[in-house]
């Protein structure tokens, strides 16, 4: 990480995300805005450490993209970064930007989580290029990410269009060596804003003209793509299969089939059809290798070129060397797979856990026991409440969706006999991202949802970034903390139904939870403790189990704290004949934060401070 913050020129070992940031900086970017999301987060984090750039964590991706547009309109080069699903959020403004375009260079760096290691789906952002009529650049690695980003700003200015820099996990997170340069002073001649109502006001009377200009731009971009140095027809001597490939999969193709002719697509939209025709003319078969949808494949087929693609390649996940070799074997009619994966050892799954002492442990300790409640979850660390030992979640849909879904369920079930209570669980940053409109709706419609607003004063899942609720900005400046209690009141929740509670106080928290579930109106419970990974968190002396007091009841294990581990288990038959499973535990000193949750959960007083 430290290396990239240096501004000296030379050879560096950078991830794709760091390379994008470095190149944007060298290209004279002055404004950068993003919302954190794996695998894109490090782009803005890196830019924030470089001089001469205003960088912000915006409240959501749509805001971030609009910030970049505003900067571009004012003549400053700008970049906006997000994960693939973030671009869905930004899409409304993105569509307009496809029409009105940009002034100073604007690059949208979007990173697709191919293999869905940390996302709700696998999504192919190249579609936006087609949908919005944008040029798409697809680097295969960090070195290309660097070079393409630098060039993207001039493409953007030449065609007055946002450029979509399409990254994937394997590009964003792999480190490679590359040569970095310097940052010339941004060109002040381009600075400044001039009113242009026919362009920037997209009322219906201006749309027709913009559509005509867009068609002209499409044609110019198509010419540029065919001539681009990023679209290369690499000759090869093994002409049995020729490949059309973009992104990180290019390296898999080169490793597996070093002698094959390859059309490497870097400026991949508009698609340079002429080059594809030339490849097809010199090989027996063409295989299109793309992550993740059959997009280029469909366009080549529509252009009359016979190609294979997803008929032999998998429909999901990364295209690695073994995957590719098996696909080519199938294409060539070899029935057996050429490479079988060595057998894996059977090992338990190890899903990510809430941290030792996480304030959410206290929340889920109780939610896990509300067997009757319907709990609509959201996206953040608290999503982990869906797992063991709590199993306290019924749905996770998308950022901010918990409240809307909960409201719909509550309305739908309201007339049923013995209707089950409906809860929504959402974190501070996600609430500010897209939960607020849904809460205003619940209050306005008289919905009966109990909202748990888990304020841990951090955008924790992505690494603890700041947001309006944390009291600090990306540049480190202290700012007033957004007051969530006042905010939810202003959105229409009655003051009596806004409860601010300490999730470490187990009995108090449960009492409040029961009261608010019972209340036949919208309520919001705001929890107050910070994420254990923030500076604000106060670590206390670790706890320990006093053996003679412990009766093996295992109630402390229902917290799901990773600092509590089992020393031995026993099955006992009570005098009543009932069989009970007992477990004795120890507390890992190195992990324990002394939060006292397990001491409070223990009915025997067996857990004490050291």
């Amino acid at each position, binding site marked *: 990480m430290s290396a990239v913050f240096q501004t000296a020129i030379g050879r560096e070992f950078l991830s794709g995300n760091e390379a994008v940031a470095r190149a944007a900086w060298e290209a004279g970017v002055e404004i950068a805005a993003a919302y954190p999301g794996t695998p894109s987060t490090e782009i803005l984090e890196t830019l924030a450490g470089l001089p001469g750039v205003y960088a912000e964590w915006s409240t959501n991706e749509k805001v971030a993209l609009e910030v970049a547009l505003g900067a571009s309109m004012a003549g400053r080069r700008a970049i906006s970064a997000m994960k693939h699903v973030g671009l869905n959020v930004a899409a409304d403004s993105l569509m307009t930007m496809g029409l009105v375009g940009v002034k100073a260079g604007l690059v949208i760096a979007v990173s697709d989580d191919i293999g869905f290691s940390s996302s709700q789906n696998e999504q192919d952002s190249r579609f936006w290029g087609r949908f919005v009529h944008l040029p798409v650049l697809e680097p295969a690695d960090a070195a290309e990410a660097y070079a393409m980003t630098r060039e993207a700003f001039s493409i953007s200015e030449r065609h007055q269009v946002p450029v979509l820099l399409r990254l994937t996990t394997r590009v964003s997170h792999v480190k490679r060596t590359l040569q970095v340069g310097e940052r010339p002073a941004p060109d002040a001649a381009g600075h400044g804003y001039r009113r242009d109502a026919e362009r920037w006001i997209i009322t219906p009377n201006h749309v027709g003209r913009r559509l005509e200009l867009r068609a002209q731009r499409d044609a110019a971009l198509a010419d540029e793509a065919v001539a681009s140095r990023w679209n290369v027809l690499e000759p090869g001597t093994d002409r049995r299969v020729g490949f059309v490939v973009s992104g990180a999969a290019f390296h898999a193709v080169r490793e597996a089939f070093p002698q094959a002719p390859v059309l490497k697509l870097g400026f991949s939209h508009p698609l340079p059809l002429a080059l594809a025709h030339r490849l097809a003319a010199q090989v027996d078969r063409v295989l299109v290798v793309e992550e993740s949808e059959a997009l280029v494949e469909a366009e080549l087929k529509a252009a009359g070129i016979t190609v294979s693609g997803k008929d032999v390649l998998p429909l999901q996940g990364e295209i690695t060397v073994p995957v590719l070799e098996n696909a080519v074997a199938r294409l060539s009619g070899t029935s057996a797979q050429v490479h079988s994966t060595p057998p894996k050892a059977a090992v*338990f799954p190890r899903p990510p856990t809430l941290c030792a002492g996480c304030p959410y442990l206290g929340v889920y300790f109780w939610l896990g026991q509300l067997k009757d409640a319907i709990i609509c979850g959201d996206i953040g660390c608290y999503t982990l409440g869906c797992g063991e030992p709590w199993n306290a979640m019924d749905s996770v849909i998308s950022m901010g969706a918990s409240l809307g879904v909960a409201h719909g369920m509550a309305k739908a079930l309201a007339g049923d006999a013995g209707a089950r209570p409906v809860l929504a669980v959402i974190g501070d940053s996600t609430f500010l991202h897209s939960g607020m409109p849904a809460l205003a709706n619940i209050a306005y419609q008289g919905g009966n949802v109990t909202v748990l607003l888990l304020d841990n004063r951090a955008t924790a899942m992505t690494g603890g970034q700041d947001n309006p609720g944390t009291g600090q900005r990306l540049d480190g400046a202290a700012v007033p903390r957004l007051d969530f209690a006042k905010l939810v009141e202003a959105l229409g929740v009655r003051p009596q139904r806004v409860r601010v509670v300490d999730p470490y106080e187990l009995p108090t928290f449960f009492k409040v939870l029961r009261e608010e579930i019972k209340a036949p109106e919208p309520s919001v419970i705001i929890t107050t403790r910070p994420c254990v990974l923030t500076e604000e968190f106060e670590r206390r002396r670790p706890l320990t189990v006093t053996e003679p007091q412990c009766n093996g009841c295992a109630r402390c294990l229902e917290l799901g704290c990773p600092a509590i581990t089992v020393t031995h288990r026993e099955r006992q038959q009570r005098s009543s004949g009932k069989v009970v499973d007992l477990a004795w535990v120890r507390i890992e000193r190195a992990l324990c934060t002394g939060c006292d949750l397990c001491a409070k959960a223990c009915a025997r007083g067996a857990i004490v401070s050291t």
Partner: protein
Amino acid sequence: MITDVLVVGIGGQGVMTAAEAIARAALEAGYEATKTEVTGMAQRGGVVCSQVRIGERIEASEIRPGTARLLIAFEAAEGLRWSHYLAPEGCALLDPWRAVPPVVSSGVHRYPANPAGELRAAHRRVREIDARGIAERLGDARLANSVMLGAAASRLPFPQDALRHQVLRRFGSGELAARNAAAFEAGRALARSSG
């Protein structure tokens, strides 16, 4: 000739940092190198696997299962989990330390009784390196990574001091650097002692 190295453990253990030290040492020694992480969710407690490829020229950054020369595992069950990446002649350096997750504590899943034994039964070459135990005796469990990298140093295709330099450069020249240097040497000595 490409040397593939996996560094595995759980989120929060410093797997990525250790892998980065190996990659940078390779670069310092004049090789090309790539470093990646596989399977996301890098928060605390989840599975983390970082892959380093070292050679004259690297295409794909991901290691093919069955080809890794070295597997460095900071946690016992994680060593077992990723062992299918090893080449037949490859070697696993395994810290026998166990991180038992809530899915095991709650009784839903079982922790393997003897990860190193299972590896040997599958005809894997295994060296147990009690890195965490040594680190604790040196006064800080966080020194385990330096112990482990010291133990790995002789199995990498570049001078051991290149790795030592990369491990220590993060710590400047004070007390922390001295402690990590001692940890690295302890690991190196252990690897020498019983080949």
